[in-house]
């Protein structure tokens, strides 16, 4: 299962200020831990909303309205995300709990959301035969 840990924006992130060195190091260490556990899929930080645009559709079927950033309500903005692949919802929660407080100063907020995924089973006979044959071959070579 995939989950996204969404880090909310703060005054600092919106001002484009980098995290302090301690936090930066804690984040790096945390990401390394995720990677070493084989659960990290992707992680990115977003630039402040001052460079963003917002497209909205106030009239159904009508033309969109475009507003330039920055946007004022920091708590509703996103500053970054980390995508993880885990075995259960509980595991995702556990990882999210271990993420360092993203900004300090009482503004840190992380949101954990599950990603939609499709069915993952197959009974494709070609694939089965292919892989079985290839594996048998590999096995033979390993034994010889």
């Amino acid at each position: 299962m995939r989950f996204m840990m969404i880090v909310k924006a703060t005054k600092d992130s919106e001002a484009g200020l980098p995290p302090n060195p301690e936090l930066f190091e804690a984040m790096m260490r945390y990401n390394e831990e995720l990677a070493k556990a084989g659960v990290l899929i992707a992680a990115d930080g977003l630039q402040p909303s001052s460079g963003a645009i917002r497209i909205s559709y106030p009239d159904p079927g009508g033309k969109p309205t475009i507003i330039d950033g920055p946007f004022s309500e920091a708590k509703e903005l996103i500053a970054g995300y980390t995508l993880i692949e885990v075995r259960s919802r509980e595991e995702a929660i556990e990882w999210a709990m271990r993420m360092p407080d993203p900004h300090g100063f009482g503004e840190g907020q992380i949101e954990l959301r599950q990603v939609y995924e499709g069915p993952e089973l197959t009974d494709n006979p070609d694939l089965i035969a292919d892989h079985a044959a290839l594996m048998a071959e590999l096995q033979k070579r390993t034994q010889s």
Partner: protein
Amino acid sequence: MTESTSRRTIDTIWRMESSKIIAGLTRMVRDIDLAEDLAQDALVIALRKWPETGIPDNPGAWLMATAKRRAIDMMRRNKIHDKKVEELSRSSDLFVVDESNDAGDGEIGDDLLRLIFMTCHPILSREARIALTLRLLGGLSTDEIAHAFLVAEPTIAQRIVRAKRTLREAHVEFEVPTGNDLKKRLETVLEVIYLLFNEGYAATSGTSWLRPVLCQEALRLGRILAEVAPAEPEVHGLVALMELQSSRFKTRVTSSGKPILLKDQNRAQWDHLLIRRGLAALERAQSLGRPFGPYSLQASISACHSVARSTEETNWVKIAALYEALSRVLPSPVVELNRAVAVAMAFGPEFGLQLVERLEEEASLKNYHLLPCVKGDLLEKLGRNEEARDAFRFAATLTRNEQEQQLLLRRAAECESTSEGGSV
């Protein structure tokens, strides 16, 4: 926190930490069976204490310290007075819960690597390696492993017990092999992971909900291995192969479960995040500057498909060359047949057909339905419809899969109608 959520949380933490704890303990007591028992003891203590005290800040370190204390107690009780025990009981850090997050990070990785080399040891049967790896590195219960492989739970339990005994009796060292040994041993590790992946990917039978778990578990183990053994190109090659194949999970069957061929898959629905990860892993394999092994080569072939917008825009010349390279490191008639298909796509059906005809003498492919199937396909493209029809009919007699049989007979019938029409 209610009792059931705390139980679930503790179980989750256990699953996340158990392999590291067992690996660390194995280094201490040199026996995986004992290490697993000690780790379990620590879990039991956690289940008793945590609901009262709350979950510690660093639960992994807590479990590890508790298990190590148990190990020392036990060794003292048994009055085993060897030097190692004395050393262990003297080293005070074992009695302190280490709260720092990064303590011995490299060491933990090394222990995990040693553990996987142990559970995939060539002294064990293939089934035993798989079961033991899932149990100790995946933290799966015997019941879950049994479900995933559709065998009875006692069979798996017995397999694991026997595997542990075999390792103990053979005095298998808890270490990462070096030199020439490393290459051979690594092959076994990678094989176990890829077998797991295929077991889940192929899902030969039924409705077992645990099948995808095997795929994910294989991918997770591969990703971990890439972190703890980053200097091995084939590790990255295998990870690349699994990431790229996983990227097509959603598109390879219809909603009713019918297989969709690569050329008919909706490429927009491929998981582009996984493709990106696969390509990055392949780049890491390449950057190590050693010749590609079978996994990196297969991943490279898969990557050709991943970056192509359609079958027509696929770099078949490159794929044909890669199959040729693959047939050198992994000589196999099946690889050769795949090469024939690629050659036909790259240079024309007549060249593919030459390779296919050579393969017909191969005894191991006598009952392999895909050989006459490919042959029929190439003959049809060359306008030799009667021969194509015979090839499809023959292929249909070789497969027991009903859907496939029908498909082959339909293709035979199509050849027939074209040749009767005299259009050729």
